[in-house]
């Protein structure tokens, strides 16, 4: 987005993230504690209340990919014995660690003082931190989020989580920082989260407009950035989302579509719902395959991995630990297949989509296993056209541009053909 006009929110976001990495780089000198944790099911507010800095290995991995470094990192991990078959996020992170742990801004990322294995819905996270544990000599604390197998959160699940937070996570943070758990501080953070969440949902819902003022997948990953990482529960996030909301509302008022890496998008021709994470190694190229054809993504599930807010959940300052548990268990990755189908079908309707497209990534069993069934079910329930492409998160070897483009084009032409209903017979 270098030669394209940037909106103020974009600049602000860049600045926020830059500042975070600066803080991280200075953490050891400043005596600040660093905690590694994951995006889905993160306890950012709790961490903030202890004044520790979070590092999200997935974010490092995806940033590495966008900077075209992931290939080297992955091959480094494969060199030390990791299989070609497994999740490339893990390999990218391990490889980055082995290559000096330099962050996206070129500054070093400090070693963790604690590994907070608070994760949601993916077994690979467990392995990931087992692997990191071997790399670093630091304590690990695990928060196990039970899966919503039957599409609900039972009292037993909630109790289990609260008990873990209370008897394991909090004591570990207390021990690390030497300060006592401050519930009031946590409540304040949760209140700030709630405010930002309101505005973010407003932005995501704006895609119901025609044309949609946002791209809820490619653009969406930028919008969720602050919310899913180090900024939830801060004033900065509240300001960012307020600003973003304003910009989006202004675009709606002007009847404008989303901003793409190549500037404002042309006329909106196709409205899609996308399931699955994006590819990061060819992010712009990938986006362009859609934007050039006039396809805009009006809703995606990937923007819900770090929390599902659009069905009403908000962090609740009145029940601090309970709300953290609910948040973790509610993340998209912790939802059962039937719930995911439900969600996609509701998006298709709510956002008047022309099609549902699955981007299946080789890395991620958690997302991918069952996506074909999801696709069929959503097609069946909504009657809109389904499409399927395969790429990977951060392994460029699995992004075959020609192949992906071919499928996307065929898919969009299919929607077009379906819509126009032109046929031999009709014309004859």
């Amino acid at each position, binding site marked *: 987005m270098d030669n394209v006009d940037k909106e103020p929110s974009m600049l602000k976001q860049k600045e926020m993230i830059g500042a975070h990495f600066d803080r991280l780089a200075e953490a050891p000198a400043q005596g600040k504690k660093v905690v590694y944790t994951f995006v889905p099911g993160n306890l950012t507010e709790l961490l903030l209340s202890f004044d520790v800095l979070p590092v999200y290995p997935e974010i490092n991995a995806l940033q590495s990919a966008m900077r075209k470094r992931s290939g080297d990192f992955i091959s480094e991990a*494969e*060199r*030390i014995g990791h299989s070609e078959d497994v999740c490339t996020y893990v390999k990218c992170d391990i490889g980055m660690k082995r290559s000096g742990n330099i962050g996206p801004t070129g500054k070093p990322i400090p070693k963790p003082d604690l590994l907070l294995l608070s994760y949601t819905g993916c077994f690979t996270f467990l392995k990931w931190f087992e692997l990191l544990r071997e790399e670093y000599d630091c304590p690990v604390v695990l928060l196990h989020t039970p899966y919503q197998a039957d599409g609900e959160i039972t009292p037993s699940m909630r109790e289990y989580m609260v008990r873990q937070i209370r008897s394991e996570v909090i004591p570990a943070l207390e021990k690390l920082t030497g300060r006592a758990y401050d519930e009031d501080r946590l409540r304040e953070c949760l209140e700030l989260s709630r405010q930002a969440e309101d505005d973010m949902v407003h932005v995501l819902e704006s895609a119901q407009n025609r044309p949609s003022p946002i791209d809820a997948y490619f653009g969406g990953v930028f919008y969720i950035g602050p919310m899913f990482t180090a900024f939830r529960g801060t004033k900065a996030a509240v300001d960012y989302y307020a600003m973003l909301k304003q910009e989006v509302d202004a675009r709606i008022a002007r009847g404008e579509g989303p901003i793409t890496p190549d500037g404002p998008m042309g006329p909106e021709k196709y409205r899609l719902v996308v399931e699955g994470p994006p590819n990061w190694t060819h992010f712009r190229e990938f986006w362009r395959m859609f934007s050039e054809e006039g396809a805009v993504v009006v809703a995606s599930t990937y923007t819900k991995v770090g929390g599902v807010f659009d069905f009403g959940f908000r962090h609740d300052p009145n029940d601090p630990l309970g709300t953290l548990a609910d948040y973790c268990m509610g993340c998209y990755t912790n939802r059962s297949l039937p719930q995911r189908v439900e969600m996609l079908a509701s998006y298709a309707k709510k956002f008047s989509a022309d099609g549902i497209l699955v981007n299946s990534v080789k890395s991620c069993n958690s997302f991918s296993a069952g996506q074909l069934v999801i696709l069929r079910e959503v097609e069946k329930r909504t009657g809109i056209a389904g499409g399927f492409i395969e790429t990977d998160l951060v392994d460029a070897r699995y992004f075959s541009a020609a192949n992906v483009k071919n499928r996307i084009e065929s898919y969009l032409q299919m929607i077009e053909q379906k819509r126009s209903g032109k046929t031999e017979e009709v014309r004859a």
Partner: protein
Amino acid sequence: MILTCGIDVGSSAVKAAIIKSHPGSGRAREGAELVATHVERIRRRDQRHVIRAVYDGVLEAAGLTESDIHYVATTGEGELVDFRTGHFYGMTAHARGALFLEPQTRAVLDVGALHARAISMDADSKVVGYRMTSQCASGSGQFLENIARYLGVTLEEVGALSLEGDRPEKVSGICAVLAETDVINMVSRGISLPNILRGIHESMANRLAKLVRKLELDDGIVLVTGGLANDIGLVHATRAALVEHGIDSRVETHPLSVAAGAIGSALWGGYRYERLSPDTKQAA
């Protein structure tokens, strides 16, 4: 004097070697001599038929007859050799053969028709580690062979042509078959033969380097064996790729590299022969 014959039955070629060694020279087979080698591509012929032809060929080259041979050792698809005395597994044989050809060898890069493998070994040719390509044929000799066929050059020309390339064109696909399409596209975009071949070599070399990189190598030479050792373009690219991957071992090849497996198994045959009981010797 013990005369042993090693036969390496591969998927694209059959290789044979006859070794003369002294009784009592143990595992090291100090003073062993290579008497003759013989190689034939299978090329759509019946394997058993080729095996026989190769055996006859190597005997003729050595000026020996079947009854002179004390032990026939096989490697590769050894089951097909019904006159074998014993069998040794591929990497054991290649490591041994490589050490014979080049005593400084500490790692072998065996690139054959369908597989590539990197083997690290100690000074005694004991295999200490290895990596292989997976169940996918991309980046193997067969792949190169197909491409050569497409491009209308013979295998013998491939190496020299590739060295002429100055702006190698990257092959993107992982799949050998899809890479063919890449190559077709290149031709139609007017990329020169040398640059295409060099691009392929570089991509293969990169894969090979990754295999080697996963081994923990001591000093010493990396010897390329197998059919593709003849391909100087690949050897050249492999050298560069290893350097790029931060491996400073010297990469060498030997005119008899292709027969390394056969030579190795013949040497092992000598060792085992001495350990056979007298009556098995009779039978052998």
